[in-house]
């Protein structure tokens, strides 16, 4: 048994951490997260320049990572710094392009930004409900429909879109120039977009894509749980610091047992979150992937919200302000549960797995 990170991954984490702390200062983060294009293209290129994207896939695909822990390490650091760069699309696209046997060169170098468009207004979390359609009109495939809240959609060069081609759910590659994208910032900062397709030109990548999409969603969910973990750790550190320094009634508020016990409960919850993320990361690409990811996303969804709400409450008014970073961490922690299936959605997956044996 060994719960230490390998040297390679420790280096990966340190590289990310250093870059983000030097290049992605808090004021900078606040500005870019809410100003079009809602991220910083230069910093994106900077992250690519560190070779981070090569950690997304294994050596067989031209990378040097590709394990669950590689993704977890990267996203934990993004979460720690509350970095709004839309790397989620790259993680999911790397899985999808690999499944399609398509080249990954541009993705790994960071030259092309990918967003993955699966969810729709009436089918936010489930593949069965997808209504976007694909037709082969002789001169190639054309897509029609709307994809909603596409993360990184407005700043992507290419969109990987799930659409129904006759009875099957297929995966297509659409150039951003061929699509109608309506970008906006998210409430917790960072870019998203509505994608309107009205006979948009598309290239077929995978004709029967259900299992590849399910797999990509799992990897995306793993990334989000790790991001939440990083964000929880920063939030918790700020809370402890504040409990020790803020004084009321002539003593640090951390001297009140009513707050001490609640702070301790949060520490316990965050340990649980760390463990379930480790368990999920270790199960990726194995037989238990679906179960472990669902467990992680379910638990982390609940824990992240608890940490957010309790951190605000125990700070008092100051954490209600835009100026104080905890408010932004809290928004991210709560809104992560709105991405790629919320705590209830993943609980349903678990119930189904239990009931069908």
């Amino acid at each position: 048994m060994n719960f230490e990170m390998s040297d390679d991954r420790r280096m990966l984490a340190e590289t990310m951490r250093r870059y983000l702390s030097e290049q992605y200062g808090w004021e900078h983060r606040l500005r870019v997260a809410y100003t079009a294009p809602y991220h910083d293209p230069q910093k994106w290129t900077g992250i690519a320049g560190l070779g981070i994207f090569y950690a997304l896939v294994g050596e067989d695909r031209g990378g040097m990572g590709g394990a669950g822990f590689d993704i977890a390490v990267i996203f934990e650091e993004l979460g720690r710094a509350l970095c709004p760069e839309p790397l989620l699309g790259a993680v999911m696209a790397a899985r999808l392009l690999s499944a399609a046997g398509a080249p990954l060169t541009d993705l790994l170098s960071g030259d092309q930004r990918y967003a993955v468009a699966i969810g729709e207004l009436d089918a936010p979390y489930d593949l069965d409900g997808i209504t976007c359609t694909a037709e082969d009109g002789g001169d190639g495939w054309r897509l029609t429909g709307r994809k909603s809240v596409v993360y990184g959609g407005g700043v992507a060069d290419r969109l990987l879109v799930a659409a129904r081609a006759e009875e099957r759910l297929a995966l297509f590659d659409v150039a951003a120039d061929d699509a109608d994208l309506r970008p906006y910032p998210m409430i917790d900062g960072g870019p998203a977009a509505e994608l309107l397709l009205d006979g948009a030109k598309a290239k077929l990548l995978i004709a029967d894509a259900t299992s590849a999409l399910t797999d990509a969603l799992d990897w995306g969910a793993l990334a989000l749980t790790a991001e939440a973990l990083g964000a929880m750790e920063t939030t918790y550190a700020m809370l402890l610091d504040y409990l020790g320094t803020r004084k009321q009634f002539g003593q640090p508020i951390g001297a009140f047992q009513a707050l001490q016990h609640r702070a301790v409960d949060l520490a316990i919850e965050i340990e649980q979150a760390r463990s379930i993320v480790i368990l999920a990361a270790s199960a990726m690409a194995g037989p238990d992937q679906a179960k472990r990811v669902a467990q992680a996303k379910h638990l982390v969804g609940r824990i992240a919200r608890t940490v957010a709400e309790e951190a605000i409450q125990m700070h008092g008014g100051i954490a209600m302000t835009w100026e104080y970073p905890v408010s932004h961490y809290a928004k991210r922690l709560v809104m992560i549960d709105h991405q790629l299936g919320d705590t209830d959605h993943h609980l349903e997956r678990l119930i189904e797995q239990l009931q069908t044996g």
Partner: protein
Amino acid sequence: MDLTYSPAERAFQTDVREFLAENLPPALSRKVNARGELTKDDMERWHAILNARGWLAGPWPKAFGGQGWGPIEQHIFEEECCLAGAPRIVPFGLKMLGPVLMKFGTPEQQATYLPRILDGTDWWCQGYSEPGAGSDLASLKTRAERDGDDYVINGQKTWTTLGQHANRIFCLVRTKADGKPQEGISFVLVDLDTPGIEMRPIRLIEGGHEVNEVFFTDVRVPVTNRVGAENEGWTIAKFLLGHERTNIAGVGFSVQALEQVKQLAGKVMRGGKPLIQNTLFAARLARIEAELDAMKITNLRMLARAAQGGRLGAVPSMLKIKGTEIRQAINDLARRALGPAAAPFPSEDLDGNLPIAPEGHAHHAASYFNNRKISIYGGSNEIQRNILAKGMMQR
């Protein structure tokens, strides 16, 4: 045991409903129900409509321009207003300063200020909290020093709700430096146009401008603007805390918000069905509805006791804790129901051009985050628990 209103109370409820149906501008209720940000004009417009009917200050005695409503009428009125989507009455003049002046003010102060609260000439804000004095309000440091017929005020207030619309602020200030902190505080009325006052906005978590910081540098205020005796301000502060408690549970807000979640859950789809058909979501909803229905009765039990002149003691603290927990849980459900559609930063442009959330539901994430405040302000829920514990353990 009879859980219903008396015939007279029911008749009053009908009057209020009819009045709201006829007089509440639909544009206002749409905005309130959609959790949009109300402008100063919106709030003043509603105040004027209520004032014209004599219902702006229902609980005030008739002699001061009110109706002399008891707690039950007041509750009925507020609940109906919530259900109809009426803007909230801005409480600082009507529910805070008004009762203070009636109890502690001089006849001149009453004659000067009370009519101006009713007709909207004055918009008051509350200057209690300071950066270093939140829960421990008595540690406040803003000083007022006597200089002839004036006080000279120096210091800083913060969290001043809607101060950007106000022309006056009532403040707790320190008029004596030694002795127990509670014994050196006075209550003064300050015109915000006085030289030396600077107000700066504080932006809140969801991006809105609702609170402010107020800086005082050598601000001269006539001593006649003090309410009550010098160094007796803490008595007034405590009176105020104990005074306006009928709506402390916010039951009306919760009922309205829960109705809205139900409607939303009938519209949004999950797994090919309306969300309300989803067992896990329905369970969340059913659980909160049970809590809320119990809360309604708890609230009415307390009102009945208050109406009979009974002492409430620390009971309002219970209502505040449970009431805010329920409201926040409903805000959580509304946000959750939207799924990814809760994600966009709420902006009017986006709503108009390309709706993502169903109409009227675009602000649920923003109002969930904003309403984290309700368990912090007005005495945090931790402080309320301290009050309750103290009351119970000493028995």
